[in-house]
């Protein structure tokens, strides 16, 4: 379709036309002449129908109010109402959080962030300047500023934050834990030890278990009265404690389950990267008397950095979509403390508020795209350019 209407400049030298052009040979000739289109059209058509078309339709839905009437949904244009509600209206507490007056800490954080952003933009503008890069950095800076503003008015001023904050918590805290432990395990497994094959297979196991199963397994483990650690909890006098009653422990509980499942992914790829580092480099440094830390930071890390950055990009992209664990482990509770944006959108859909559901989904898409594109341009490409 669209992308394939352009001509392909592929040529096939040396094919002699077959003698009697039957229907089949003519068809295969025709197919071969258009093989460029033949290869790519199915993928493009499928993506257009099931990704691009719904994407546009979803944008339309975000600007409408849907009402259930006789014979299905009735849609009415509502302008920016759905988005306005999330930022300033009745749904503000749900999406951004309950705002309260700035505390001293919030003012300090805001001041530091503003100074940091101004310095960052100034440094870029004064060294190498291009309009494209500057506008891109401006968008990144605006998002960072908005997020810090949101956290300042909620978290740093002592009131709860909404689904945006929760999603960012899952993404950044979860991915940081997964990267740290995944890298550590990969490093341990890359040592010259026996039984590496065994550890590699065992450590891969969590990735094979369905996320729903992981969620329920951790619900059983976390049970402080009937779970396997109950004697331990009772011994320290926490027999009546439940993880899901407190906002922060409930969030950590989900991050732990998510990390348990995804550390293997980070581990397996970083291990392959570590094994790819030439042994002679490391051995030469050892002979020269470099310390373990020096070897890691000067030789190993620069070698595995591009892989590490890409793995984390993949993890960040996937982590923004988190929904199954919060849904089955806490159902978003207590209150809305563990509700991710996907879950928020899903709940809105379940109450037939299609407009709001799409609006939240689009906000999620916007945050994901800005974070991932910034990460890709500033970290992945930046490091590759440096090295």
């Amino acid at each position, binding site marked *: 379709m669209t992308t394939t209407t352009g001509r392909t400049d592929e040529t096939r030298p040396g094919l002699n036309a077959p003698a009697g052009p039957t229907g089949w040979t003519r068809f295969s000739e025709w197919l071969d002449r258009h093989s460029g289109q*033949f290869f790519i059209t199915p993928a493009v058509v*499928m993506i257009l129908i099931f990704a*691009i*078309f719904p994407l546009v339709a979803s944008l339309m839905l975000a600007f*409408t109010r849907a009402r259930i009437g006789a014979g299905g949904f009735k849609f009415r244009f509502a302008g920016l109402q759905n988005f306005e509600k999330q930022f300033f209206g009745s749904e503000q507490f749900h999406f951004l959080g309950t705002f309260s007056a700035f505390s001293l800490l919030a003012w300090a954080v805001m001041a530091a962030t503003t100074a940091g952003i101004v310095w960052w933009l100034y440094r870029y503008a004064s060294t190498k300047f291009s309009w494209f890069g500057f506008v891109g950095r401006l968008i990144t800076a605006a998002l960072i500023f908005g997020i810090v503003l949101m956290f300042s008015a909620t978290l740093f001023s002592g009131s709860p934050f909404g689904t945006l904050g929760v999603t960012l918590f899952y993404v950044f805290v979860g991915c940081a834990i997964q990267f740290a432990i995944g890298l550590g395990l990969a490093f341990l497994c890359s040592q010259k030890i026996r039984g590496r094959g065994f550890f590699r297979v065992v450590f891969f196991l969590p990735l094979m278990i369905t*996320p729903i199963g992981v969620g329920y397994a951790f619900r059983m483990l976390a049970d402080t*009265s009937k779970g396997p650690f109950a004697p331990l909890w009772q011994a320290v006098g926490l027999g009546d404690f439940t993880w899901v009653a407190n906002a922060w422990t409930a969030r950590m509980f989900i991050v732990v389950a998510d990390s348990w499942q995804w550390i293997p992914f980070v581990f397996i790829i970083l291990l392959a990267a570590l094994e790819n580092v030439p042994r002679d480099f490391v051995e030469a440094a050892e002979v020269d008397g470099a310390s373990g830390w020096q070897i890691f930071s000067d030789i190993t890390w620069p070698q595995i950095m591009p892989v590490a950055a890409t793995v984390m990009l993949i993890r960040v992209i996937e982590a923004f979509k988190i929904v199954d664990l919060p849904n089955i482990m806490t159902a978003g509770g207590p209150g809305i403390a563990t509700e991710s944006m996907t879950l928020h959108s899903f709940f809105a*859909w379940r109450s037939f508020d299609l407009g709001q559901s799409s609006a939240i989904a689009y906000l999620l*898409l916007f945050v994901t795209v800005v974070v991932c594109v910034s990460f890709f341009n500033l970290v992945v490409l930046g490091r590759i350019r440096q090295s």
Partner: protein
Amino acid sequence: MTATGHDLSSRGLWQRLFEPPSINRMAPGTFITVYALLLVWTLVVLFPVYWVLITSFKLPLDVASGPYFLPWVDFTPDLHAWKALFVDDWEDTLKAYSNSIIIALASTALSVLVGSMAAYGLARVQYKPKLGSILIFVAATIAAIIAVVRYGVEWWLAGLVALAVFYFLVLALSRHFKTTLANGDILFWIISQRILAPIVVVVPIYIMFQRVGQLDTHQAIILTYAVINLPIVVWLMYDFFTSIPVDLEESAQLDGATRIMTFTEIVLPLSRAGLAATTLLVSILSWNEYLLALFLSTSKAQTMPILVAGMAAGERGVLWWTMCVTIIVMIVPVVFMAIVLQRFISKGVLLGAVKG
């Protein structure tokens, strides 16, 4: 340490523990630390699995009356949960299980086939789509959606008219479009679809399948999964195809092979390792998918993850024992597939793609 020598007796305890005695041997302290950490993580990984396994053999009473750890020691294993799932409710289990297997296999096959075709095209053919044509297409799509949503036009009519308008506009105008995109742009466009959270597109997809009466069917879920996983396939396979030397294909084409024959007879067999790794990854993702199945299936096409989640929604509280059985039963095909495909997957297949 004395100033004169490095004899062993003068080494301090710390040095003796943590300084390697030779370049190929590990110091005993490091050795113990490494193994201790690895064993700790082995426990962290295996304990939840062990707990799920023994819970599947527990009576409801054993689950409710406090933690029991060892079968035959502090509780008697019982097959009641396995019996409930495979003897009493075997029809439901079999339905969900076969649904899951059909959907995972078919969607994996579809996305690996379509995705590797696209990846091969991008790796070997120069595409030059015109920016103007793409803009016309987007405009036609938006017009069609507005017509359907605001003015209640039949969806197939709007689609047909939009396609026709697009076709004739491109025929008439394409000579005047100068800006073209290249393969890199198409590749980026396809891969970037992975950023799209399923929740953004699932409501329109739901409405779309509802309009054509295909909700709660295999084909609806298969198609959706195939598209969701397409970016991964294109990304991994593109990297794999570019690493295959082009000479082989050129000589085959000199001998009169068509491009499609080259693809099926030469390129695909050469990329078995990449195909195996991609197939494994994509089939695990489809096998475990939850959110889209929640939207697109209600009863007939229900998949295993939905069945597992359903065990918590019964009126008798969470049925931990049968749920643990289903979790274990869900691991089996994945392990089986991993073992089967393991032979083809060489080390570092995924590494090339990740290196970017």
